[in-house]
């Protein structure tokens, strides 16, 4: 079989301000082939794909399609080259129906005719075995339904080059299998498929070739048949590293936080937490694992006083007064006024934990500005604290008065974690604290969590990397579809066990 290159990237470079997202990346995808683009979070995978699909424009470098140089200035150009991208964050119009979304942007000669188009869409659905109510509005759909719409949208356009950005992050194993079957069928039709992922098992199961990116740089491409997960990991992280996170035995654990039968129904009427009970002890790191969107966010937010619950209790045992407080339906201020020293590193750093346009000092002040009787702000202490955090955690910044949004992701996180730890908490919750961080920053965060643990803090750690969870935590609770599917001892559990429990109730986002 003579292979023909569908798309070729040569020396693509793109930077955002001072951050280089892609540097001299070269890549070739052949027709009838599935290529995995593998890399850690923040390695520049999505940026690269966005340049192929016309969202970003490269600073330098060239793209060749079918052997001819192509200039992709906009998504429209990308469509003209028959490139279709399924974004991680779906690009759908909420108030439109499925079929309307599929038809957006199409410029064929046909008159606009919902009925006729619906028939065509239905055919595609039958061909690949999708089940979809075409007149359903997007805002009424589940995540996997939305993804189906996205895929049909690309298929409807007859794309020859398909790019999927982390398509399985939100899917159940069954849905993933279905998706892979579709992708294989498309490959057999002669389409070129690029799938972005950081899940090695999926790379091995699906792709013909793997291209690896590390910190924005292109490492190389290998044939899947000639490699294995270890070799790929090595390419991905540079050298083979075992995590080697130190873990100590919890010292005199006492019950600190007790969650009793909490349930939560969100505004759309979906049950996001169902009868969850667990307890966290002082001096331990309590891990929470699960597919993204299984209720982790709601769980932490309800403990932090940000989420209303429908039933259950959240009990806090105060080590100083030996009193027990119920935190349910209390606001963050009320919780603080009860003397509960609860710190929370939320998943959405710049959207929730920090304010991007404010400087480091003002961000440090977020937690403490209310202190004191004066009506005026006291910036002296926050400034000292800011400087201390910058020095202790090695935050790279021009100064304490630099707006947070100008810092890189790792430095942003250092400021956030530094602030949350500074209030010497008794409970510390961290949601995906190392997401998008480089290895060094990640280790710094692990060490900080361990330090807190040794100080007797009850640490709750929500993570996505199972290896990290297994090496860092003392116990791991696995949740699936808002329900607890198991609690494991992290010293003896295996990845497979956790993986199985994660999908026990049918995965996330239901």
């Amino acid at each position: 079989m003579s292979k023909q290159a569908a798309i070729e990237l040569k020396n693509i470079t793109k930077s955002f301000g001072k951050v280089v997202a892609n540097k001299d990346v070269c890549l070739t995808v052949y027709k009838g082939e599935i290529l995995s683009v593998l890399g850690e979070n923040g390695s520049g995978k999505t940026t690269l794909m966005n340049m192929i699909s016309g969202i970003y424009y490269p600073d330098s470098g060239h793209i060749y399609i079918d052997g001819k140089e192509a200039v992709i200035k906009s998504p429209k150009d990308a469509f003209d080259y028959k490139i279709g991208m399924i974004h991680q964050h779906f690009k759908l119009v909420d108030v439109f129906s499925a079929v309307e979304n599929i038809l957006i942007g199409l410029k064929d000669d046909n008159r606009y005719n919902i009925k006729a188009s619906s028939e065509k869409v239905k055919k595609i659905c039958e061909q690949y075995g999708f089940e979809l109510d075409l007149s359903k509005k997007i805002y009424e759909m589940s995540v996997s339904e939305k993804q189906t719409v996205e895929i049909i949208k690309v298929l409807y356009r007859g794309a020859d080059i398909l790019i999927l950005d982390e398509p399985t992050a939100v899917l159940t194993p069954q849905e993933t299998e279905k998706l892979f079957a579709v992708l294989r069928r498309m490959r057999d039709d002669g389409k070129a498929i690029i799938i972005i992922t950081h899940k090695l098992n999926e790379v091995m199961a699906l792709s013909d070739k793997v291209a690896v990116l590390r910190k924005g740089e292109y490492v190389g491409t290998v044939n899947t048949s000639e490699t294995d997960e270890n070799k790929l990991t090595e390419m991905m992280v540079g050298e083979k590293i075992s995590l080697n996170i130190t873990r100590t035995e919890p010292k005199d654990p006492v019950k600190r936080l007790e969650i009793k039968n909490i349930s939560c129904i969100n505004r759309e009427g979906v049950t996001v937490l169902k009868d969850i009970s667990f307890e966290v002890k002082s001096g331990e790191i309590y891990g929470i694992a699960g597919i993204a969107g299984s209720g982790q966010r709601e769980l932490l937010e309800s403990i932090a006083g940000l989420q209303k619950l429908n039933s259950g209790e959240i009990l806090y045992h105060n080590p100083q007064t030996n009193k027990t407080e119920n935190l349910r339906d209390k606001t963050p201020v009320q919780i603080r006024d009860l003397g509960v020293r609860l710190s929370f590193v939320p998943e959405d750093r710049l959207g929730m934990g920090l304010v991007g346009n404010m400087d480091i000092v003002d961000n440090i002040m977020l937690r403490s500005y209310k202190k004191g009787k004066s009506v005026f702000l006291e910036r002296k202490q926050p400034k000292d604290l800011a400087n201390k955090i910058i020095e202790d955690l090695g935050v790279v910044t021009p100064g304490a008065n630099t707006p947070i949004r100008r810092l890189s992701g790792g430095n942003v996180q250092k400021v956030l974690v530094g602030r949350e730890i500074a209030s010497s908490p008794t409970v510390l919750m961290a949601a995906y604290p190392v997401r998008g961080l480089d290895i060094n920053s990640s280790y710094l965060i692990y060490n900080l969590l361990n330090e807190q643990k040794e100080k007797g803090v009850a640490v709750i750690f929500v993570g996505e990397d199972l290896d990290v969870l297994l090496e860092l935590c003392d116990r791991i609770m696995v949740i699936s579809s808002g329900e607890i599917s198991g609690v494991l001892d992290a010293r003896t559990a295996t990845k497979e066990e956790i993986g199985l429990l994660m999908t026990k109730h049918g995965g996330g986002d239901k």
Partner: protein
Amino acid sequence: MIVAFIQRAIVQGIPLLFGSTGEIITEKSGNLNLGTAGVMYMGGISGVIGAFLYENSVETVNPVLAVLIPLLASVIGSSFMGLIYALLTVTLRANQNVTGLALTTFGVGFGNFFGGSLIKLLDTDVPSIALSATSKCFKAGFPFADKLGVVGDVFFSYSFLAYIAIAIALVTSFYFKKTKSGLHLRAVGENPATADAAGINVSAYKYGATIIGSIIAGLGGLYYVMDYADGVWSNDGFGDRGWLAIALVIFAVWRPNFGIIGSFLFGGLLIIHNYIPNLTLSAQELFKMAPYVVTIIVLVVISMRRKRENLPPASLGLSYFREER
């Protein structure tokens, strides 16, 4: 009495209908143009300038030219306004509210300035701007309206621009619901990133919708001077109808066909004080609040019900930059 009321209500409503249809088109693209008041002044005064130049340059007016020249002038004037707005908010990504307010200042000022200074600037010897000949051409209606009694009075007694206003509203409604381009426009206003990723030229749609919306709104100003005011320009005569048109957009929940009914209702509310017997002058002023109070009630009800279809376009008021991150 009732017939006269309906007639006057509709005549009052037509400028609002033009204004709100134009604003709906603009808002559907995600641009909240608070400059509609200015645009409508501009549409009116441009038409006046065109008509004034034409009337003063010929002995007897040709009815076709007397309509076409002001119409063309109005379209040029208001599309210029739309262009400024689009240039600032779409290309230069300026704040929409501030741009809109500046546009109102400029447009209202432009209208009043030329309305007040046109005669001096052109060194003509007429005492005031009264374009009765042009107005007569604009007011030409159906000759058979008189013979149809009440039906004729209520349905056929208006000038051609009034029917155009209704036609434009209906066509716009159809355009949103039944055409691909309408679907694209709505997508741009709801979620420009999605529209962009789907290959729609977001800027082109925003420019197009803003300029066409402005032209339509400008016709409202033209109708007001030429028909309602009999071709007599008076400064600030148009009043706050531009703002009322924006209120009407909300009242009509962004649907031009609802806007037709809404505009007649608003028109009625504007003049109802004239038709309630024994109303003192002061009480009349209280009645003039009616359209504003009604709009607030609708606004509150919509926000309490939070039905997705009745909410404004999701990206309304925001500018779009593809590489934002």
